């Protein structure tokens, strides 16, 4: 790290400094001044010039804009010694920012970007060295030498790395770039492949691509395996289909052969069957002949038997006829007596029935009369109820009419009040219309477009007037003449004394002429060509507006605006008036009001309260209830009257029925019936059928006795009839059988011999013939082969089935072939080979990439470990170096410190009193600033080991007591041998011992004079 210090600093328009410069010595420089003299401004100016680019948009730079003169950029100029060469650096910020670096050896000056680049290289601002230097210039209030946030992430331990060779005296020339290169390369390679946070493979990296390729290849391989299995399955199916087809074809052939074999057998069987049928026919003929002869023989025998049976049946029929006639005569006598008794019993029954009917009619008449009397009483009660309901309804009706009359009167009064109010409003609107008409509401107004033009003209005119009022002042100076002070008016005719215009503004056209004796004449006027153009335009506009105002009959835009407003208000009032009239005339409204007034007066209800709606509703409800009660009573009365009418009719019907039953007087009728019954009972006694009383039960018992006496006779007669019929039937059947046998015998004897002997001989011959035919038939039947029809049908069925199966198998075979061809047609083999090899290649590539990635990841992580370890080591050694200085600065209060790696931050200090490490923030402010100063001094000393460096200290000992202050001054003096130190302080007295030294430069900002040495 080469030397770097300042020789001169100059500020122009920088904060409170308009123009300030200071020459600096290579050692200790004291910049003193009271508060507000600009020490911190000078400190910040040096810092900004070295650390901020001229084009920076840092807002804090606005703080250094010069006070009181806006528009000028704060400018800093530094004379810098760096690496044995001298440079002049000039930077301007904010306004017209610029950077200029001029090598003072006569080389070419650089501006702006190249200049900043050169400055960066001078300051080694590549991250690490620049950070260290900034630690020497940085904010004194910070707790860390280097703020960790300013360290780039990939260079986290760079400051420590830079310090390491400075600390390690055994290998001062060890290149640090090797590790940095390796670390950078590992970091980059790692970053290319992995995400930093989650340590996952980065998308788009080679490793990711290799993994993707491998996945694709595996999927492709899987697809090929699937296709392979599909192919195998298809091949299996094809083989099965082919075997099935062969089997089906073989089955079909076999079935076809079987059918072909069976068909000749079937034809042979049919021929045999025909011959057998002929034999059977001959047998049947012989059997029929034999049977006819045998039947003729049997018929002869049966005819003789039938004749004998006919004789027996005729005798039995004659006996049955006699028995039947005897039974029939006995039954007739018994039935005659039964009829006579039955007649008497019927007569008695009819008489009893008539007697009962007359008695029942008499009872019904009594019941009906009683019901009639009850109905008469009910009708009277209903009539009373109906009268009461009608009276209640009339009362409720009257009450409701009274209430409605009162309510109507009050409503009329309200209508009258509303009408009065409406007429008053109309009167008000009419007066408003009259007022608006007087305000010119009916006078002409411009259209909206014209009005907008007028407003534009007025605005332009106002703007022109204002612009003319604000016309800049033209200055004309004529020196070397006597100067007076006066004001000339716009026309130039009058010269006013200045005192007359005191406190007034200069009007357009006026001139202010200042005549200064011994100096000259100064004229100030507000005019010029632009102003003249404006004035001409203004006059034209004014003229144009004046014409308009005259045409419209107004004095200006405000009056016109008022007229337009009045017109709008008039329109609004007219609309409102029309709404109020609603198509009626005011006269009609007045007439209606008079009618209402008259009606209200007639009502005379001013003192009567208006019935509330609830009372009206209650009265209406009462009327409805009364009406309902009246209707109900009405219905009940009508029902009672109807019942009375019905009872009367029923009573009359019962009386008429009784008259009809009795054929006159009922009692006489009853006496006649009793005498007739007695006569009938006497007849019954005479016929031998006595009954105790004329009651239905006795009559029924008598009838049962008669019936039981008649039944045995009837049974005997029935049995005789049955026997007679049977005998007659048997006789008829025997006659028929005999006739049939006789006819059949006659028929048979036409073909068979009538002679029994000849017939028997014929029968023997026929029997021999039939036996021979039977033997022939049986012989042929036994040689008949089995019928092949079923077997043939079965074979044909099998043939059909086999044919169907064969067709299906052929179809299956073709389908399997098609499927296989389809699978193979996808260029399967080439794809399979390609997939296998692609998978192998992808696996190989992924393995290589993964190994490289793992190797880089390993290096990256190990470099991180090593860097962290080194940082800790550097921090530890820096702390050890700082310990003696800090002990001196704190007068032994602090004996040792611990420094954290990244920001080189002193974090803990060992207290002398307690011999224990505490956090630095637990110590006093004075001790803290001494600890930090000690660290910075050691850092400066280290950096200056290869060349003088610049150390900026802004009030570094503000909280330090005098004793420790002296120790600090000693340290600063010692360090100033190798480091340029700029101390900014407002306590020059505290640094008085140093000001005595010849090598110390003291700059007092209060006077701005650079004090010479000593």
């Amino acid at each position, binding site marked *: 790290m080469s030397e770097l210090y300042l020789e001169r600093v100059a500020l122009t328009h920088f904060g409170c400094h308009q123009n300030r410069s200071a020459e600096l010595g290579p050692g200790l420089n004291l910049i003193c001044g009271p508060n507000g003299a600009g020490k911190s401004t000078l400190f910040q100016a040096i810092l900004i010039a070295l650390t901020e680019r001229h084009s920076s948009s840092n807002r804090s730079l606005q703080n250094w804009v010069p006070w009181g003169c806006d528009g000028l950029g704060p400018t800093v100029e530094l004379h810098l010694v760096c690496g044995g060469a001298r440079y002049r650096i000039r930077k301007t910020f904010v306004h017209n920012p610029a950077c200029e670096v001029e090598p003072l050896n006569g080389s070419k000056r650089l501006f702006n970007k190249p200049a900043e680049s050169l400055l960066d290289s001078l300051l080694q601002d590549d991250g690490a060295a620049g950070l260290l230097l900034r630690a020497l210039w940085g904010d004194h209030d910070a707790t860390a030498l280097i703020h960790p946030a300013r360290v780039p992430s990939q260079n986290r331990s760079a400051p420590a790395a830079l310090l390491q060779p400075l600390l390690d005296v055994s290998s001062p020339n060890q290149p640090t770039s090797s590790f940095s290169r390796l670390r950078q390369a590992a970091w980059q390679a790692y970053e290319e492949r992995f995400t930093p946070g989650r*340590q996952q*493979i980065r998308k788009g990296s080679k490793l990711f691509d290799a993994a993707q390729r491998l996945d694709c290849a595996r999927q492709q391989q899987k697809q090929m395996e699937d296709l392979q299995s599909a192919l195998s399955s298809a091949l299996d199916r094809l083989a099965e289909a082919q075997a099935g087809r062969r089997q089906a074809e073989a089955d079909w052939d076999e079935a076809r052969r079987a059918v072909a074999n069976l068909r000749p057998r079937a034809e042979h069987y049919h021929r045999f069957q025909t011959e057998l049928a002929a034999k059977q026919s001959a047998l049947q003929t012989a059997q029929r002949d034999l049977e006819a002869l045998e039947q003729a023989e049997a018929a002869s025998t049966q005819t003789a038997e039938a004749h004998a049976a006919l004789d027996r049946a005729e005798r039995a029929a004659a006996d049955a006829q006699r028995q039947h006639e005897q039974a029939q005569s006995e039954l007739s006598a018994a039935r005659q007596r039964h009829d006579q008794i039955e007649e008497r019993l019927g007569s008695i029954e009819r008489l009893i029935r008539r007697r009962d009917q007359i008695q029942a009619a008499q009872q019904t008449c009594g019941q009906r009369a009683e019901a009639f009397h009850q109905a008469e009483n009910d009708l009277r009660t209903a009539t009373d109820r109906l009268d009461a309901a009608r009276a209640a309804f009339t009362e409720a009706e009257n009450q409701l009419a009274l209430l409605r009359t009162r309510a109507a009167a009050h409503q009329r009064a309200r209508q009258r009040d509303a009408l009065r109010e409406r007429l008053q409003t109309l009167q008000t609107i009419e007066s408003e219309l009259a007022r608006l008409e007087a305000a010119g509401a009916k006078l002409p107004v411009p259209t909206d477009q014209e009005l907008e033009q007028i407003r534009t003209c007025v605005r332009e005119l106002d703007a022109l007037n204002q612009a003319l009022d604000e016309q800049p002042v033209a200055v004309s100076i004529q020196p070397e003449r006597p100067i007076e002070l006066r004001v000339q008016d716009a026309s130039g005719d009058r010269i006013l004394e200045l005192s007359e215009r005191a406190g007034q503004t200069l009007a357009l056209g006026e001139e202010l002429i200042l005549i200064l004796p011994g100096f000259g004449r100064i004229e100030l006027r507000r005019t010029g060509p632009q102003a003249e153009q404006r004035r001409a335009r203004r006059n034209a506009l004014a003229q144009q507006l004046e014409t308009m105002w005259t045409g419209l009959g107004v004095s200006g835009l405000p009056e016109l605006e008022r007229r337009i407003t009045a017109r709008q208000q008039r329109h609004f009032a007219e609309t409102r008036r029309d709404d109020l009239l609603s198509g009626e005339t005011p006269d009609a409204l007045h007439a209606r009001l008079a009618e209402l007034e008259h009606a209200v007066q007639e009502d005379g209800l001013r003192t009567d309260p208006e019935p509330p709606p609830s009372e009206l509703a209650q009265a209406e409800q009462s009327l409805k209830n009364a009406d309902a009660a009246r209707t109900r009573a009405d219905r009940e009365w009508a029902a009672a009257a109807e019942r009375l009418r019905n009872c009367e009719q029923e009573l009359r019907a019962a009386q008429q029925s009784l008259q009809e039953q009795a054929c006159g007087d009922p009692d006489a009728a009853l006496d006649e019936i009793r005498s007739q019954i007695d006569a009938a009972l006497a007849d019954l006694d005479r016929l031998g059928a006595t009954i105790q009383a004329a009651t239905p039960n006795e009559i029924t018992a008598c009838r049962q006795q008669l019936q039981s006496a008649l039944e045995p006779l009837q049974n005997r007669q029935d049995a005789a009839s049955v026997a007679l019929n049977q005998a007659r039937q048997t006789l008829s059947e025997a006659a028929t059988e005999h006739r049939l046998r006789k006819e059949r015998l006659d028929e048979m004897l036409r073909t068979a011999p009538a002679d029994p002997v000849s017939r028997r001989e014929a029968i023997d011959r026929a029997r021999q013939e039939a036996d021979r035919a039977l033997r022939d038939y049986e012989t042929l039947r036994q040689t008949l082969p089995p019928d092949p029809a079923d077997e043939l049908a079965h074979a044909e069925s099998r043939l059909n089935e086999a044919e169907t199966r064969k067709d299906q198998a052929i179809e299956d075979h073709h389908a399997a072939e098609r499927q296989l061809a389809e699978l193979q047609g996808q260029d399967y*083999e080439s794809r399979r080979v390609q997939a296998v090899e692609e998978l192998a290649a992808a696996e190989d590539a992924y393995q290589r990439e993964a190994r490289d990635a793992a190797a880089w990841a390993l290096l990256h992580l190990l470099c991180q470990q090593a860097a962290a370890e080194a940082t800790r080591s550097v921090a530890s050694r820096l702390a050890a170096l700082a310990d003696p200085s800090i002990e001196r600065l704190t007068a032994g209060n602090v004996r040792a410190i611990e420094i954290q790696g990244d920001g080189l931050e002193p974090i803990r200090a060992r207290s002398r009193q307690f011999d224990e490490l505490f956090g630095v923030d637990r110590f006093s402010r004075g001790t803290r600033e001494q600890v930090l100063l000690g660290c910075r001094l050691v850092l400066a000393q280290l950096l200056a080991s290869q060349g003088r460096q610049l150390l900026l200290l802004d009030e570094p000992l503000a909280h330090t007591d005098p004793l420790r202050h002296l120790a600090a001054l000693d340290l600063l003096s010692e360090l100033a041998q190798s480091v340029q130190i700029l101390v900014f302080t407002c306590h020059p007295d505290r640094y008085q011992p140093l000001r005595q030294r010849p090598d110390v430069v003291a700059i007092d900002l209060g006077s701005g004079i650079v004090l010479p040495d000593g």
Partner: protein
Amino acid sequence: MVAFRFVHTADWHLGQPYRSVPDLAERLREARWVAVEAILKKAEQLPPHIVLAAGDQFDSPTPNPALVERLLETVAAHPSVTVYMIPGNHDPLRPRSVYVSPAFGKRPPNLIVLDRPEPVALDGSRVTLYPCPCTAQWGDNPLTWIPRRQPGQQLRIALAHGSLPSACQSDQRSYPIDINAPSRYDLDYVALGDWHRPTPPPAEDAAARMYYPGAPEIGGWDEPDAGQALVVELEPGALPRVAAFRTGQYTWRTLDADLADDSDLDQLLAQVKSSASQTTLLRLRLTGCLGAVARDRLEQALDQYAAQFARLEPNLDALACRSDDSALETTDPRLHHVFQALTRLADDPSALPANWPKDLPRPDAATIARALSFARRHLS
């Protein structure tokens, strides 16, 4: 009597994928055609110009039609030679297989596919060939159908595809061949296919009657001695005279070496250099332990030699890396820390740094060596 001579070959595996060397696949597949051409040329020199191919002519039962067409053209280009072939277990005779495909239907008359187990008379009926075609991927002993010797029969040859018992699993049906097949079936020669390595090698066992000629071109690292076919001479009552001849172009070589120091490394590199050829595939399987510098030298040398081989495939996974003094020649404690950590990690894999990426396997010796190599290259 003139001896009966023929060329015995098998396992051409035309169209075979090369899983282990995908980048060379096309060249190696092409080399198989050259081998077939060499076989046919050899047969042209040996009356009666017969080639017996014992199955697996194609790598799959349904090869690319272009392959089929090329084979037919190749055979047709040697009309004096008659090629008898049987389907193997890779290209079995099944429905839609290559041998019943329409493309194969256009085969030249000198290409005869023996697709059924029926005796075939060769060389004027003095030789009877018993073909045993495969009809599926798996099957039983294919020789069982061979009838007894008929009176007057002179030479009996079986052409079969299957495995000898030493390679057969008991529960598999990979067409097992009886080890005593020649005597059991009274055969003068059994021409086998299926095994890609010549078995037995004729040079080592000249008294056999049953041979596998091996594949005519090497198909992988596990068949380094393939790449040849057999010329067989038969005479009744005499042992067959069998001689191998080279058909393959490529050499596949695996070099195992255990390295302990630089002298071992020099020796290894000399060996590698001496075997460099554009038709050689060399696989290095290295074990032992080398210093980082030596390992760098090894890797750089191998990178340099790679272009002189068809393929140079070093496997350094089992070659440990030692952080030697020269690797630690740095006073930068951070570099020292990195090297030490790598060395520790090689000895103790549990010393893995925190934040190790989730998707990566734990670093093995090869990874650590690779990291060391990267580090050294960036530092040099």
